[in-house]
């Protein structure tokens, strides 16, 4: 007799993913897929993919899914959810998509309290376009457009999305997590599960910000990248629940 302790989720297509070795996108895609399986959501889910490294998310997640123009995923997700509120809608974005070009869209989706689950992958850099500064890049961090390190006098400060959105009455649940250890991965899954359940309960806007390793663009090994998240990123992006509504 065989008992399954862990199997590849059915909500992931049986294909290799293009992400770099040790990339956080793969871990979070896997978590989302596990939850779609566990909550039996796959057949009523419509996802929205970003522009960025995860632009091909529709090739990996085994549900109905739409692309969106850069930054516009919250507006596209709004259009999908408002077309049929019975559908389970999630939106998946990176730091350029959500916190740079898409800042207005995420703020207003939160402000309207759109009943959609938003996943925000924060790796403090623009991966796909070859490693430029992101709004969330750390002070002193060297990138393709901050070759001498981010100078806050010229390039501004890292943008804390969860804290920003927490000021909005329309935001129901906001949490920041990491995927830097099995325990952290399980905590992220628990956070995303809460966000998904909140949508199923009709509670409104939820966003889980995942501090994610980008070994390739950071110029580190995958294991060292986990350390960078834990030791450096969390100094600017505190972990934990940023906003939780009770009712």
């Amino acid at each position: 007799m065989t008992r399954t302790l862990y199997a590849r989720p059915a909500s992931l297509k049986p294909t290799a993913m293009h992400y770099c070795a040790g990339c956080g996108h793969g871990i979070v895609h896997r978590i989302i897929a596990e939850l779609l399986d566990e909550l039996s959501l796959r057949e009523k889910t419509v996802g929205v993919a970003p522009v960025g490294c995860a632009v091909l998310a529709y090739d990996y997640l085994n549900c109905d899914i739409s692309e969106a123009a850069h930054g516009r995923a919250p507006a596209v997700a709004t259009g999908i959810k408002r077309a049929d509120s019975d559908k389970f809608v999630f939106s998946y974005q990176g730091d350029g998509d959500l916190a740079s070009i898409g800042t207005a869209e995420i703020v207003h989706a939160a402000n309207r309290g759109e009943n959609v689950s938003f996943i925000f992958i924060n790796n403090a850099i623009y991966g796909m376009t070859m490693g430029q500064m992101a709004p969330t890049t750390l002070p002193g961090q060297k990138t393709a457009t901050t070759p001498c390190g981010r100078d806050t006098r010229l390039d501004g400060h890292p943008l804390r999305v969860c804290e920003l959105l927490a000021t909005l009455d329309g935001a129901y649940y906001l949490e920041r997590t990491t995927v830097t250890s099995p325990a952290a991965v399980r905590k992220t899954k628990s956070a995303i599960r809460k966000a998904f359940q909140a949508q199923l309960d009709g509670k409104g806007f939820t966003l889980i910000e995942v501090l994610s390793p980008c070994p390739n663009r950071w110029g580190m090994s995958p294991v060292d990248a986990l350390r960078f998240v834990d030791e450096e990123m969390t100094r600017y992006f505190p972990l934990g629940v940023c906003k939780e509504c009770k009712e």
Partner: protein
Amino acid sequence: MRLVKITAEYCKGCGLCVWACPKGSLGLSKELNPLGIHPVQFKQGAECTGCRNCAAMCPEAAIEIYEVNDDG
């Protein structure tokens, strides 16, 4: 006994599972997969506690873990 099945063609050799395994039971193999990478393998004779840490870390969902009872 626990069986750790790794889909070698998905593995990118990131090493996160190797790092996460509390028993040090995973390591990169000598073979190459179609990506030109040494995929991870479960070391022969090594122990699996069924903690699933490896599967939790794997960005490729390349690891599956089964418990096989000897009686069938």
